[in-house]
């Protein structure tokens, strides 16, 4: 599990926001009407994944594998 610095964690968290906000528009283009909660859930999901990656990175030592942005 590669390491995420606190900074990287924050920056990535910031990037999840536009994704979540635009989720419904994207769905709307395919005629899918997503409720507002869907957006909240989606954002929460993204943050959860990110947090897990971050914590795992804290626990397990870095195997020196390269980063993915």
């Amino acid at each position, binding site marked *: 599990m590669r390491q995420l610095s606190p*900074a990287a964690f924050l920056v990535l968290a*910031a990037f999840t926001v536009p994704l979540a*906000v635009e989720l419904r*528009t994207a769905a*709307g283009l395919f005629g899918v009407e997503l409720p507002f909660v869907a957006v909240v859930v989606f954002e929460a999901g993204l943050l959860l994944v990110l947090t897990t990656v971050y914590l795992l990175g804290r626990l397990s030592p870095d195997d020196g594998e*390269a980063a993915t*942005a």
Partner: protein
Amino acid sequence: MATFVDRYPAEAKAIQATFAVAFVSLGIGALFGAIQALHRTNVFRFMDSVDYYTLLTGHGVLLALVFTIFFLAGVFQWGITESLDTPAPDIRLTWAWVGLMTAGATFAAVAILAGLFPEIPMSADVLYTFYAPLQAHPLFYVGLAMFIVGTWIAGADWFLSYRTWRRDNPDERIPLQAFMVLTTMIMWYVSTLGVAVSVVFFLIPWSLGLVDTVNSLLTRTLFWYFGHPVVYFWLMPAYLLWYTVLPKLAGGRLFSDPLARAVFVLFVLLSTPVGIHHQYLDPGIAEGFKFIAMTNTMFLLLPSLLTAFTVVASVEHGARQRGGEGYLRWLGALPWRDPAFTGMALAGLMFAAGGFSGMINAGMNINYLVHNTLWVPGHFHMTVGTAVALTFMAGTYWLLPQITGKAVYSRPIGLLQVIVWFVGMVFMSNAMHRGGLLGIPRRTAEPQYANFDFAAAVGSVGELRMQIAFGGVLLFLSVVLFLFNVAATWADDRVGTPVDDAIPEPLSPASGAPLVLDNLALWTLIAVVLVVLAYTLPILSIVSDAGLLGSSTGSPVAITLEAVAETVAAALPGVW
């Protein structure tokens, strides 16, 4: 290791003054912004809607003119002194423009804020664009004029430093930062002429009652003659930081000095003959003039698109030097924990998005779709409100230590601050763009109308309002964190090396740039010719149509609750 303040203490003092004024107006302007975001979305209101426009005027003038221009004046003074390694010709001259600009800004601010107090017979609720015949108190126009003249003296100050340097270095290339400052000021001199004529020859005499009428379309056209270049006046210092500082922060070097120069020359040439694209939907201007303005505007995209490549390439160079690999994985190798770097990077990213909505605004007939809708403030909160403002805040984390000799109080707070700004702006400006497409107008205090509702295709208008309010609150929070960090830094003690302030040489050096690029006189001449070509006929036809002074008598912005009550009452019959 000595930094700027140790080498140029006198200049540093003056820069500290301009930064101080900039940050104070940033605080006030941001507070107004937060109040507006909550008021017009009907989330939280404590004032009457008529006061909304007073705050809106304050928000626009304090942030778009005072914060940006005072900060960039500091950056330019730093850039000139540092890159030419030449002290100000006479520090009293420097303090003269700092003083004049401050006095002018204060006058304008007083005239605006007086509008909040009915007992004071003074108001200037004319918004940042002060379209006649809406009439502000003379103090407002006088303040603006003093402010502009102050910037002219500042420019003269910098050209004098350049002359001194040139005398000692007859055959050198102009150092890049100095080149950027000088070209930007040339653009500024050319473009401020319009607003100066409008304010000094028409609006001041008219507000003093010396002349009875103005030609609304003429003063409006003169305003936009200046109103578009001014956005480049905000943007150029951000570009200066992106070109010369960001690569260094990323651990790299500027990809190409010659291209950076070419880009600034293009801005000198094309920034001004485009103003009419703000008047696509104005009567009294032939479609042909609008089309010419559009083609100029579209080609003005070129320098910004080139900047995108050069700056990103310079940042990539840093990432590669820091061990970055792959097509995109290198992004991970960047120093994201540096608030100065991260702030500028996020600002650049958002500028890419704001650039797109700008392309839409530039399209002549598609303007029917977005003109004066919420889309427009959505656009400029991404550009001047983030590309410029966030870059300035990020730059502060790197510049403030140099001009105060003090290390930044807290890097983590700084990082949090720039990220909160980014997130807040995503919420607010995204919702504004969407709202605009639904036909929600800009510059209004009320979210709802009596005769109709706005229909949202995806989601609901209510959600858009919530996003605007939430984003506005985050943005205000970000400014609070920023100002706290700045104040705490300022209150700290001097340290030996507050910051790593070395700027590495460009990968592709100035020597590769054609000498003609440094021929400032030539570019000035061509710029003037282009302006004459683009504006002579429109101005002549506007004047011959409605006369130099037109027929619009003043309409002082009176804030009376009765007027509002009557109008609302008048509008209601439409409903029932």
